[in-house]
């Protein structure tokens, strides 16, 4: 199992680092962050979906549903097809994870449709002018921001976040994220 994880992680890193164009690099980064976000949702125990640190207004479930709904907005802008999963209305882990998976599938299609030729096509994202590339780029940037918060929730529940738990041991030491 550990070996399989090592090869998957190595392959993902390679997909990012050996990419030959900006769109290929973006697609590689999407593959990495979507895996981390999905694993974070799947691995958090059902009971802890309602957990939130003291002072934080958002529960863990809120972080996941926020990501899922944001996927639909930004990938919708990137693909030109507007759809919703209404993740914020879901309450159980099963329903929330299902909504997240649906949003990821929606985004996968948007990234698949991105090419070097259409990257600079003009789109509207939340009412603002953007490029197709920019909308899909912002989606990855935003996922990373929310994943950064998820990692703290994980640590507070004494669980190692997926990005650290699944990282191949290279040169010793894991980052505390």
């Amino acid at each position, binding site marked *: 199992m550990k070996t399989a994880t090592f090869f998957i992680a190595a392959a993902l890193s390679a997909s990012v680092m*050996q990419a030959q164009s900006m769109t290929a690099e973006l697609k590689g980064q999407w593959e990495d962050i979507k895996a981390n976000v999905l694993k974070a949702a799947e691995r958090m125990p059902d009971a802890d979906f309602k957990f939130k640190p003291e002072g934080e207004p958002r529960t863990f479930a809120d972080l996941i549903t926020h990501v899922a709904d944001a996927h639909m907005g930004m990938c919708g802008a990137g693909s030109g097809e507007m759809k919703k999963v209404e993740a914020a209305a879901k309450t159980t882990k099963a329903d929330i994870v299902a909504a997240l998976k649906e949003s990821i599938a929606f985004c996968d299609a948007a990234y698949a449709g991105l090419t070097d030729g259409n990257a600079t096509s003009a789109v509207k994202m939340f009412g603002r002018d953007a*490029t197709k590339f920019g909308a899909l780029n912002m989606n990855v940037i935003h996922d990373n921001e929310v994943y950064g918060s998820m990692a703290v929730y994980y640590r507070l529940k004494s669980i190692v976040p997926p990005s650290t738990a699944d990282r191949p041991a290279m040169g010793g030491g894991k980052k505390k994220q």
Partner: protein
Amino acid sequence: MKKQFVLLMMVVAGAAGLQAQNNPLSAELKRFYDGNKTNIMRSAEKMPEAEYSFKPVDTVRPFSGEVGHAAEWAMNTCAWAKGETPVNPAAGKTSKADLIAALKQAFDYCDPLYNSLTDADATKMVKAMGGRDMTKFSVLWFNVMHNNETYGTMVPYLRIKGIVPPSSEPRPAEKKQ
């Protein structure tokens, strides 16, 4: 004198608009970088000095470590994009004043790269992350993505200390209400 100033401003604004029009991807990246830079810097400023050693749980960095980490990686990525050798501006720094200075040093180093980047220049290959070939755009974009992840990590630290994160502060129009 006033007329000359207005004319100059119009020329500058026109040139900036033309730059964005001709370089849509670079202009978007700069906008993302500017927004994220502000959030990181404002977080560092808003956290009280006494809370720089705070960490929500023993398995994560103290807040000071997150600020230092952001400064170090901003410097790393921008040095790679410039073809220079990175020097960690936060090395050995623990006080709020020193870490904010390190962050400012890193952003001052990065700013000219984002300000002068063109879409044509963005596709040039540079060596990053241990000698891997990446586009200049991807390296500068990685900086934004990584900073946003770090900002996402800072958010629960701020919330736990009863501080509203910069990205959630009321916008100017909302403040008037």
